[in-house]
């Protein structure tokens, strides 16, 4: 049986790691996902004068989710810039500033508001390097929280990574753990392409081990969080925790699940996924975007294209139902992907 969902996933993650690595290590501080992001921002502001933060409520308010908390006091208004509510122009001004030689980190208060910035992100940021013959670059990081599960209704519960994955020219980064949040954000800031950096609203409070100081996580390298031989569960962002919980539950049924956290969707580490599928012969893709046309659909297609001969069963997709998110708690829960669904899918594949 599956235990009731916890409001914030704890560290099934740490368990998975400990079982693999018994070596004694120095204790690494446990900090929240939001603190890990804050640490990355602080370190990069300190490291590079060209780096600055811009967005709604990032300064005096400290960020709607407190990710930029305390940074204004240290770096001042020039480098931690509150903006008017003008998402299109916040993104566009960030792109222009990047073309002018700066390294802007733009915070969109949530990805839902980010839809107002789509013209600048998709028509401009994603195209500028290519359509001008490689002569211009746009080294911008656009951070945005997303995701459902807090009864925020249809306009505040979306997971829109697929929209950005669909646009060549954008990198799409979507960390699940505090350590990856820090390491991937630092990497994103140092790269030269526009990066869409998507944080899940339910993850800001989770704690995990985060290396202090210089900690860089490369793009395009998935993390095998748990090794298993019977089924591969591919996921990213918050759903990684559901996948880990499902893997734990499946132990009781003697189904040994491998759990992969993709960490970045563009670039996509297909190699790690395919190697796992070759071993297990079964794959479940778990994601919080809508099922139809979601990032998971692309991942499933790539598994079919690359590893069809190794599959013993069709690839299963567990995703949010194709519905605008309802407010009601029970309806919302029914719309979102669940541990129970993953377990059921694994049982059916086995």
């Amino acid at each position, binding site marked *: 049986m599956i235990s009731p969902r916890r409001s914030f996933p704890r560290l099934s993650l740490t368990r998975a790691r400990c079982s693999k690595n018994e070596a004694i290590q120095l204790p690494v501080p446990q900090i929240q996902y939001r603190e890990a992001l804050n640490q990355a921002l602080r370190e990069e502001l300190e490291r590079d004068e060209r780096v600055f933060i811009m967005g709604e409520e990032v300064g005096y308010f400290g960020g709607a989710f407190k990710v930029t908390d305390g940074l204004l006091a240290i770096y001042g208004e020039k480098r931690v810039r509150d903006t008017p509510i003008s998402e299109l122009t916040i993104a566009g001004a960030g*792109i222009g*500033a990047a*073309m002018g030689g700066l390294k802007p980190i733009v915070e969109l208060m949530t990805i839902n508001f980010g839809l107002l910035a789509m*013209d*600048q992100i998709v028509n401009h940021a994603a195209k*500028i390097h290519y*359509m001008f*013959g490689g002569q211009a670059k746009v080294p911008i990081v656009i951070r945005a929280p997303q995701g459902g599960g807090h009864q925020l209704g249809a306009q505040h519960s979306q997971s829109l990574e697929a929209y950005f994955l669909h646009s060549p020219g954008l990198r799409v980064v979507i960390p699940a753990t505090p350590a990856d949040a820090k390491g991937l954000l630092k990497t994103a800031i140092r790269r030269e392409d526009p990066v869409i950096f998507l944080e899940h609203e339910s993850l800001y409070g989770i704690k995990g081990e985060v290396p202090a100081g210089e900690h860089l996580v490369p793009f395009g390298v998935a993390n095998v969080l748990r090794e298993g031989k019977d089924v591969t569960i591919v996921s990213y962002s918050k759903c990684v925790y559901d996948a880990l919980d499902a893997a734990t539950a499946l132990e009781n049924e003697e189904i040994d699940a491998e759990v992969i956290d993709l960490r970045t969707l563009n670039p996509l580490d297909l190699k790690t996924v395919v190697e796992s599928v070759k071993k297990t012969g079964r794959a479940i893709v778990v994601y919080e975007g809508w099922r139809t046309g979601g990032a998971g659909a692309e991942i499933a297609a790539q598994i079919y294209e690359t590893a069809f001969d190794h599959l013993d069963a069709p690839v299963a997709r567990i995703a949010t139902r194709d519905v605008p998110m309802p407010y009601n708690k029970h309806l919302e829960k029914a719309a979102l992907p669940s541990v129970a669904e993953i377990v059921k899918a694994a049982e059916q594949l086995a």
Partner: protein
Amino acid sequence: MALERDRHTAQRALVTLGETELTELYRRMVLIRHFEEKVAEMYSRGKITGFCHLYAGEEAVAVGAIYSLSSKDYVISTYREHGHCLAKGASARSVMAELFGKATGISHGRGGSMHLFDPNLRFMGGYAIGGGGLPLAAGLGLSIAYKEEPEVVCCFFGDGALPQGAFHESLNMASLWNLPVVFVCENNFYGMGTMVQNAVCQEELYRFAEPYKMPGVRVDGMDVLEVYAAVTAAVARAREGDGPSLIEAVTYRFRGHSMSDPGEYRSKREERIWQERDPVKRFRSEIITEHRAIEARLEEIEKEIGAVIDDAVRFADESPEPALDTLMKDVYVDE
């Protein structure tokens, strides 16, 4: 700050500018006019394809505005940007080759007519989404202010961009943050085929400056010296740290919205009235009135430009296509 419309400013500029400068202004205007006429010819011959929006008739705006900039100042433009790019110093060869889609083009054949770009000229691109360049101009202005550099950004857009949110957001932000941006609206009275009074509640477009607390001025966009005078004042203001300005240059495109548009929504009479105000012819006769001895030099320029354009066409025609194996190159900087 005197950015009010003032015919006398233009008159004074005529006196202040020497023969060399007046000649250079004329050369740039003739270059654009002849270039666009040749582009129309090449388009009808099938050498140029895709969307192609000609600038003929509006030369005074690009030339007058850009002549007031330094080489390190930035220009942001629209899809009707051949004129701005040439005025900023691009060679006719590189722009023509781009229109031909060739590897030697200013954007390496990737952009076409609507997406010219040259970082060395600080020509920061033509953008084909109405109003799309304005937020970028604000951002470039922010980068200048951030680095405490003396440059300014000159941002061109049409009357069709006025009702876009990007226009209002960008003017608000530029004013709020006191950014060194000169917004130059080319009001040619039509956003594609829709008259400006059917698209914008306030058809005196320069009046949008007032709610955004910046100077606004309407100038005769068929008069290169009037444009030059107004933009010079706005550039000086921006360079001194006094923030953005809005300039509405009233002008007229001599052709349709694009090469595929016969422009049937405009009356022949209206077109004739504006043809009579042709900015190139008008400036020529103005110069000669003031500096009679210069006429021979102007004739030389006209001949030289003819040769420059012919050379550009030859260059574009003979240039290689981009290699097919470059298709996927430059999607990302970091592969």
